[in-house]
């Protein structure tokens, strides 16, 4: 896990975001346990309450479940729903880009070309 100590994004958010990514990408699979909250706190040199808050956020999103005395277990993920969610994210970003393009008079063709160029340079 990568943690930036002085980032504007709170550390618990950074942890939650990275674990979410690992769960959604299938790196962490259903039935697997997350590292213990105190173990992760030790590794990341942060307070226990910070890792706990990150895990609680994942719980609230339905990605993991807290099991009394055992820790946090990854839930089975609905792949169709995840795809739907991601698609909506892509749409939102594209809409934003189109809005910005409009303000400087770019045509849809030009935006499409730009996407192709960006895709190649990546």
């Amino acid at each position, binding site marked *: 896990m990568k943690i930036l100590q002085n980032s504007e994004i709170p550390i*618990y958010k950074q942890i939650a975001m990275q674990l979410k990514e690992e769960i959604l990408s299938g790196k962490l699979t259903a039935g697997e346990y997350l590292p*213990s909250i*105190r*173990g992760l*706190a*030790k590794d990341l*040199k*942060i*307070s*226990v*309450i*910070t890792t*706990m*808050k990150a895990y609680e956020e994942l719980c609230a999103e339905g990605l993991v479940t807290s099991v009394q005395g055992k820790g946090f277990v990854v839930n089975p993920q609905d792949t169709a729903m995840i795809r739907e969610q991601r698609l909506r994210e892509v749409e939102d970003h594209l809409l934003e880009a189109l809005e910005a393009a409009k303000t400087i008079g770019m045509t849809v063709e030009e935006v499409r070309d730009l996407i192709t160029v960006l895709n190649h340079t990546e």
Partner: protein
Amino acid sequence: MDSVIVAKGLVKKYKKFTLGPVDLEIPKGFSTALIGANGAGKTTLLDTICGIVSPSKGEVTYFGEITDIEAGETKERIGYQAAQGMYPMSWTPYDVAMANQLGFKGFHEDRYWELCKKYGVADYGEKKQSLMKMSDGNRIRLCLAAVFARDTELLVLDEPGSNLDPLMRDRLCGQFREYLEEGDGEKTILFSTHNIADMENVTDYAILMYDGAVIESGFVSDLCEKYILVSGESATFDKIKRSLMIEDRNMSTCFGFARAEEKDKLEAAGAVVESPNLQQLSIFLLRYAEQQNS
């Protein structure tokens, strides 16, 4: 939340100072910081909890059921360290080991020497150098080695970081986290501190004290959401004055501190707000207590 310590109506009266009545709970499996100005009563509270002095009134429950700290093996389960150290100055590291060996069943001498070496304070079996010849920092290190060499469920440490250099303070934080991880929810730390920022990354729960009373307590994440830092121009601050607990007026910018429920009102008036960290929160709450008191 399971509590390792529950204090109810705890009062300790001295000639010139009265602690309490204090009601508090220390959550099991976490690290709790006791924060307050000099003379706020932190040491008195810790000493009363640990049975070093007996309370004038009120009671403390330990580990969910025990009300008498002298009963059974309760003291065996608690590791206490006074701010000034508690061994005679003529003692050597070896004497400290022997005393703990005699006093506590759960003391591991090998672990003690290992920690002494890790903290750079004494070699194995050191019988020559007395505490008198050590720096304040090294005396604290020695006490920490002794207390961490015991099998305990609760550590009560009075100002453990105060006389330590930044590197050793960082190592102490690491030691805290290791202890909590080992316990897997069953081991608890209660410590007092002046260095809030240095200890923030090992503080889960905070108790703030002012003039013998607890003025606020809770998990750090909850406390930081309960209050907000406010900034804005003078004209804005004229309008929002009543919503602020504290205000610092300057020519160019004004700063303030308020309860989080005022957020919408403050933003509507043109101020910007953000969540405080533990250090900022503590300073403002202690200032607020002082302001209410004067």
